[in-house]
Every structure is written in structure tokens, then in C-alpha cells.
């Protein structure tokens, strides 16, 4: 049992490596992964007199969110369209292994790209008071948001554009309800209520705690919520793909 589990884990890493080589390691994807959230963020902060340590947690959250969900929703439709999925499914791997592989690829990409704003922030003197907490939060959030990306790809279509449209419809509202542009403390009660349904809220709150010195919620609550969302999204992504993947053929 344990040997089988380890074997499947190793094969999930093989699938992740394949995804990274084929779908992620492309110049436009990397550039787009950084530029889109940066410009979106700038559109909201330029002209407003905001301190850099306030902006950095939001920017970090947006970059992590957009990169972790940028490519993962499109991998399954691409594989369907390229007629490589049936071969993958006939290999000695389970559907959870395939999904875990796709999540790991997105997770790795999200982590790698999130280093960019952190390095920029450090270079311009943004303080990080709790680097270990921030690093742990980035790892957890990257996995959580990658799992969310895999949920978007569950509909059994071979059209990546359909999935990207669907994911955009969810992604952009999430950005606005997650305390990125307006901190949780300044939101009305109903706004805070809505923000709690977004996993990004908890990551941004942890980032504010680590960079600005204080968040709105206790860090433990943020981590518990992020962990809960991670388990929920991963389980849901696997469950949905188990139902829909055979219908892609």
C-alpha cells in the first residue's frame, strides 16, 4: 500500500515535470504570469498615496493567485485537444495522480514567480518581519490556489478558451473581495462576510501580518482557513475530474 502510494507520488512528480516543460516553460507564459497581476495592481494604486508596505502584500497575493491559476485550468483541455490524454490515462497512474501532478506543476510555477515581487520588495527596502511564516503561507497558498485552478478545468471540454473564460469569471471577483485593495479592517461587516469565502483573503492577511506587522485575523485562524480550503479544493478537484475525465475521450 505504502509502496504503491510512493510510486504514485513519484509518477505525479513525473507528470508535473512534463507539464512544466510543455506548458509552463514558455517565455510568454512567464512574462504574462508576472505582468498581468502587476499591471492590474498598478491600475488600482497609481495616483493614490499608499505606503509600499501596504501595497506589497496585495501585490504578492495577486501574483501568487494569478500565476497559480494561470495555466492549470487549461492543461486538461489542452491534453484533450492534443489527443495525449488517453495515453496518459492508460498508463499505470490513477486520476488522483494525474490531478496531483497538474497541481504540483502549477504549485511550482506559482512559487517560482512569487519570488519576483519578494526580491523586488526586499531590494526597495520593504521589511519582512516574519519570513518563515510568510514562506509557509506562500507554500500553502500556492498549493491551495493551484487546486482551485484544477477545479476550473473540470468541465469536460477540449476548448481551453471556454475554461479560461469560466476561470476569469471567478478569478476577477475573488481579487476584489480578498482585502487586496481595501484591507479587511476597512470593509463593512457584509463585505468582510463575503471576503471570508475567498482563500486569498487569508493569504493576504498573513502577508499583511508579516510585512506590515499586523493583520486583521489571528495568523492561526488564517492558516487553519487556508489549510481547510486546500483540502476542500484538492478533494473537489479530484472528485470532479474522476467524474469528467472519461467523458473527455
Amino acid at each position: 500500500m505504502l509502496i504503491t502510494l510512493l510510486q504514485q507520488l513519484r509518477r505525479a512528480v513525473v507528470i508535473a515535470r512534463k507539464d512544466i516543460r510543455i506548458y509552463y516553460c514558455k517565455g510568454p507564459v512567464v512574462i504574462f504570469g508576472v505582468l498581468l497581476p502587476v499591471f492590474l495592481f498598478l491600475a488600482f494604486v497609481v495616483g493614490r498615496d499608499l505606503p509600499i508596505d501596504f501595497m506589497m502584500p496585495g501585490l504578492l497575493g495577486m501574483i501568487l493567485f494569478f500565476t497559480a491559476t494561470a495555466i492549470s485550468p487549461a492543461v486538461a483541455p489542452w491534453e484533450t485537444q492534443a489527443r495525449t490524454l488517453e495515453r496518459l490515462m492508460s498508463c499505470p497512474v490513477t486520476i488522483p495522480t494525474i490531478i496531483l501532478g497538474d497541481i504540483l506543476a502549477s504549485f511550482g510555477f506559482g512559487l517560482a514567480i512569487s519570488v519576483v515581487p519578494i526580491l523586488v520588495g526586499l531590494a526597495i527596502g520593504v521589511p519582512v518581519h516574519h519570513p518563515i511564516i510568510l514562506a509557509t503561507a506562500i507554500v500553502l497558498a500556492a498549493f491551495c490556489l493551484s487546486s482551485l485552478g484544477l477545479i476550473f478545468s473540470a468541465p469536460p471540454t477540449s476548448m481551453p478558451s471556454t475554461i479560461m473564460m469560466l476561470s476569469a469569471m471567478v478569478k476577477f471577483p475573488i481579487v476584489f473581495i480578498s482585502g487586496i485593495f481595501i484591507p479587511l479592517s476597512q470593509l463593512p461587516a457584509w463585505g468582510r462576510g463575503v471576503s471570508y469565502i475567498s482563500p486569498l483573503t487569508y493569504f493576504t492577511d498573513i502577508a499583511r501580518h508579516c510585512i506590515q506587522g499586523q493583520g486583521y485575523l489571528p495568523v492561526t485562524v488564517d492558516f487553519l482557513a487556508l489549510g481547510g480550503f486546500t483540502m476542500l479544493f484538492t478533494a473537489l478537484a479530484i472528485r470532479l475530474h474522476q467524474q469528467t475525465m472519461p467523458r473527455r475521450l
Partner: protein
Amino acid sequence: MLQIDKMMPTVRSNSSAAIEVSDLTKRYGELVAVDHISFEVKKGEIFGFLGPNGAGKTTTVRMLTGVIKPDGGKALIMGHKTGSLKAKQVAGVVPETSNAYVDLSGWDNLMLMADLYGVPASRARKKATWLLDMMGLAQRRNEVVKTYSKGMKQRLILAMAIISDPEILFLDEPTSGLDVQSARLIKELIQDLNSAGKMIFLTTHDMDEANQLCDRVAIINHGRLIAIDAPEKLRMAVSSVHSVEVSFDGEVSTESLARLDRVEAVKKLGDKYRLYTAKPGEVVVSLVNRVCSDRVRIVSLNILAPSLEDAFVALTERKAK
């Protein structure tokens, strides 16, 4: 002859059945795509799976390779339940509509498959080098697959299926649409793999291919198995459908040939006519008499036994009626 047995160890096991299928069923809504089929394939066989488009061939292969789940019945691959990791581990698959990863090189595609099947790296490298060489792809091994021709891609896909040294190979239309050289190479490879002890489950539309390669064939139509036997025995089952193939040096109308005694049907095939009959000897006599009375001469004349294609058509049409 390809030197396949050097890298493919001969399969040895006690049980004689490689595939055991019992009451296998798959439904898509109201449609019963595969309807309670049962059969057994022995180790070491090349087993042909024939049927018209939409008959249920690919659905059956997908159930056997664990890509989709059956709605009823069961199938065992080398004693393992279909869809289980063990069943997948012992099988190599060339799906009908499959492709290699076109953004990876031929070499990387092979290494990917080896990793997914857990083949140790040193053995995988040795095997991949040998396979690429045997498939005539060694010169292009580091080029991305999108630059390969269709024949090269199909050879690579077959190499990807056998890099794990599977005991059973599922080949769904492996030579469909290929040039003569690639198709011939793949047929030779199938025979050599079989000689090395591999069981081959071959889905094909090509009756000549099935006739040349298969020890036994099954014919499926509307989701049901309608025949399963050796190609020769199936041909004999429709032995009433003989034909006389004749060509003339002048114009002869199809209608006048159809009026000859004992002729059941006439087909014009290029410059030849095929006369279907249960009594070919009597038709030859009628033809010769006819020629004596007309001003045409016979250029060629052959009596043909029913082909596997005739058997296939006769069996599928008979069941349809």
C-alpha cells in the same frame, strides 16, 4: 526481420489466458455501445478485433485498457482486474486517437513513458536508444515531435507503448493512414513482438492485415460479438460466397454478365468484373460459351475463394438482417 528478441524477454506464466472478458457492457444513455460480450484471449496470440465504424471496438479497448469503466461484466488482464494499476502496468497501449507530446522530442517522449511505468533510468535509456534505432528515428531523436511525419509519429507511439516491456499490447488501428513503408515496419514489429511471446490485441479495419497477422479474430457489430474464430475458419463459414474474376479485351455490359446462369451478383472493379456465385465451375463454362458467341476475348480469369473481407461483410450483413 527485426531483432526484437534481444531486448524483449520472452513472457512465461502458468495461466493460459491473457485476457478474460465476461459479460462486458458499456452504455451511453440509451445506446448500448458494448452489449454483454464475453471472450478469452490466450497468451502468445495475435487477436484481431474487427467491426464496422461505431460497432464498439474502441469502447471495448478503452474498457480493457482501464481508460473507461464498464457498466457491467468484468475483464481480467493477466489475471488483474481491468483498470487496476497492476493491469495497466502489464499492458502497452497505442490508442486509436492518440498522439505523442509534440512539444517534446522523441527521446523525451520515450523517457516520459518509461518514468510513468517505473522503468529504471539506465534500462530506459538503453531501451529507448535501441527502440529509436529500430524504428528508424535515431537521427531525429532530439527533434521535437511536431516536426515528425505521420508515419514517424506512429512509429514513436508504438515505441512508447513497448518501452515498458509489456506482456500485452493493445493496438487500436496502428497502421491506419500510414505510408507503405511505415505500415510494413509496424506489421513486422507486431510479428516480432509476438514471436518474443507478447500477446497482441489488434483492432483494425484492414482485412488483409487481420488475415496476415491474426491467429484468431473476433467480429463485433452493434456492440455484440457475432463471430470469433481463426480467419481461415471464418472464411470457410461463408464458403457459399465464391467469385469469378474476369477481364475482357472489349466492352461487356454488367447486365449481360448478371444474366449468366448461376451468377448471383456482379461488381465492376476497374477493368475487371467480379461474379459472385455458389457454383464457380458452372459460371466459368457459361463465360467461355458467352465469349465464343461474342466478339470479345478473355484476358484473365480467376476463381476466388471468399476473403476475410467477404466473411466480414457476410457476417455483419447477416446479423443486421
